[in-house]
């Protein structure tokens, strides 16, 4: 069973949060709150010292998580513990390749097998993926693909071929947390992708509010959204007060669940 194979048809909500942020014990509370809303997908970010494709907010989350020497094993243990109450929620890991490589691919897969449904390795392009993809698929873990506005048709066809889970469409050419949303362009590109694939296309990067979520739903053909930086930003807005943050998260998630 892979939860990603039974995602709903529309209005999919995927929430991203960095593991171990701001500390390991507080992170458990945060993920428990997120999980209590049973979003369609939770993306677990594994902190990396040099998160090349992330903006300042997720960078800061990574830095805080790593400042108490969080290990990969601790992050994976956290995910395992949470999976006891995952129900229909899909668990997806989002990370950089060096983390997986250093942990050991086989050991990594063994630790997440039957717990995690998909993985996004941000800096693993199609050209370099074959070995990892094979090992993952043997263990029924989907390798989720990012597609950007820079990806042309020929390349998109290659990326989409045999893709499983969902497509992560990067809505703006930019790093996580960028702010410009161009619905017209998003719609054009999503439509074009949907002609080539049957799996859901989710839009991520730069989605900040209920308004954004509604507009994506109304003005584009996308099957859902991914929200990350906006979720983490709240922690800093609320002056790093965990209790207030958990309440703020609850309110925010209720809002964006449309």
């Amino acid at each position, binding site marked *: 069973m892979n939860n990603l194979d039974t995602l709903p048809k529309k209005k999919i909500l995927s929430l991203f949060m960095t593991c171990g942020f701001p500390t390991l014990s507080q992170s458990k509370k945060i993920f428990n709150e997120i999980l209590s809303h049973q979003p369609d997908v939770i993306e677990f970010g594994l902190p990396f010292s*040099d998160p090349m494709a992330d903006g300042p907010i997720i960078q800061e989350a990574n830095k805080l998580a790593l400042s108490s020497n969080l290990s990969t094993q601790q992050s994976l243990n956290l995910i395992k513990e949470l999976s006891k109450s995952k129900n229909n929620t899909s668990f997806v890991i989002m990370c950089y390749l060096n983390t997986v490589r250093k942990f050991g691919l086989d050991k990594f897969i063994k630790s997440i097998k039957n717990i995690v449904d998909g993985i996004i390795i941000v800096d693993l392009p*199609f050209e*370099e993926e074959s070995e990892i993809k094979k090992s993952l698929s043997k263990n029924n873990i989907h390798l989720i693909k990012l597609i950007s506005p820079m990806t042309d048709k020929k390349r998109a066809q290659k990326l989409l071929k045999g893709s499983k889970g969902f497509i992560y469409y990067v809505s703006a050419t930019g790093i996580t947390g960028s702010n410009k949303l161009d619905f017209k362009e998003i719609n054009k590109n999503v439509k074009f992708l949907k002609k080539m694939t049957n799996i859901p296309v989710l839009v991520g990067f730069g989605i900040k509010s209920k308004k954004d979520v509604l507009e994506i739903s109304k003005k584009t053909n996308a099957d859902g959204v991914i929200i990350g930086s906006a979720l983490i930003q709240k922690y800093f807005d609320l002056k790093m007060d965990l209790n207030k943050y958990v309440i703020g998260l609850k309110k925010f998630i209720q809002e964006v669940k449309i």
Partner: protein
Amino acid sequence: MKTYKQPSTIGRFGEFGGMYVAETLMPLLLNLDKSYKKIQKDKKFKKELNDLFKNYVGRPSSLHYAKNLSKFINGPKVYFKRDELNHTGAHKINNCLGQILLAKKMGKTRIIAETGAGQHGVATATVCSLFGLPCYIYMGSKDIERQKPNVFRMKLLGATIIPVESGSKSLKDAMNEALRDWIKNVRDTFYIIGSTAGPHPYPKMVRDFQSVIGKEAREQILKVEKKLPDYLIACVGGGSNAMGLFYPFLNDKKVKIIGVEAAGRGVKTEETAATMTSGTPGILHGSYSYVLQDKDGQIKEAHSISAGLDYPGVGPEHSHLKDIKRVKYFGINDKEALEAFQTCSKLEGIIPALEPSHALAYLIKAFKNKHKNKVVILNMCGRGDKDLFTAAKAIGFDADE
């Protein structure tokens, strides 16, 4: 050894190299690779670059027989390949001219770069001024502090300097920020990477542009010594000046080649930048190569008195050359480099940059009273003007007195 032919079409030097970047950048890198391949065959491009090398940079740089230093070492005959005489004071300009011509050909209108010592920043700002393109330089705030003369130079040349406050506030973090800028501005921006690091095709492209150093040195030494050198020595940060000198000699089995890394306070300490002595293979800035990392693959901060060598990674081709044992790599610590910096200044009338001072220190240490009748070429890849304040402070000289 078979004829050396690296990298593969997908940018592999043996197992090292590759393209490990987000999908947003992949189409750009593939396009860059295609454009680069095209201009390599373009006679007009070659001519344009050669004219600039000759008339703007002042190439060929001379090959100087360092008589006094040779006498002091009491060992081999030492030649300096004098790329410190280049316009802007280091080898970095060779690469920048190549890349900006390519940027022009590709119709890009905005240039970004990272810099550590500021030499690559200055070289980039210089070529941007020459070609009239806006220039944005990412520089760690720690490096801004210790390379002040170069910061002022870049400003005079019209560049905008963007201080980087993340991580160790030095070269690695500047490169992260430059990559993020590129991801955000993919359509109009060309990223001029300053060393043989980063994702394919940069390690190959930068090596090719820098290999003018080795090509010249080969001709020059054959002329004066009527034979190839016995040794080549160069410092290795990301590895561009070293690859530039080494590459045209890789097939000459008899030429022994030595790369010198910065060991900071020592290779056995945590405060080092000697990636190939103290590091392990991993992925940083889009390429698979030796890096300084912990057991979970988190990248460690590097340490060196020389801002240009203060980098926890190294170009993938060096990792390959280390593993096939074609090049040997050694570490030299801050103190040894500072001493060589002074020795060379006093004996040879050449104030070297702190980066090649590491190569000099290795030469003095390892060749003292040895290897007589041998010939060494050392890459004098930069001059010391930019380091005067750092060196004065480290030596205990009050520059304001």
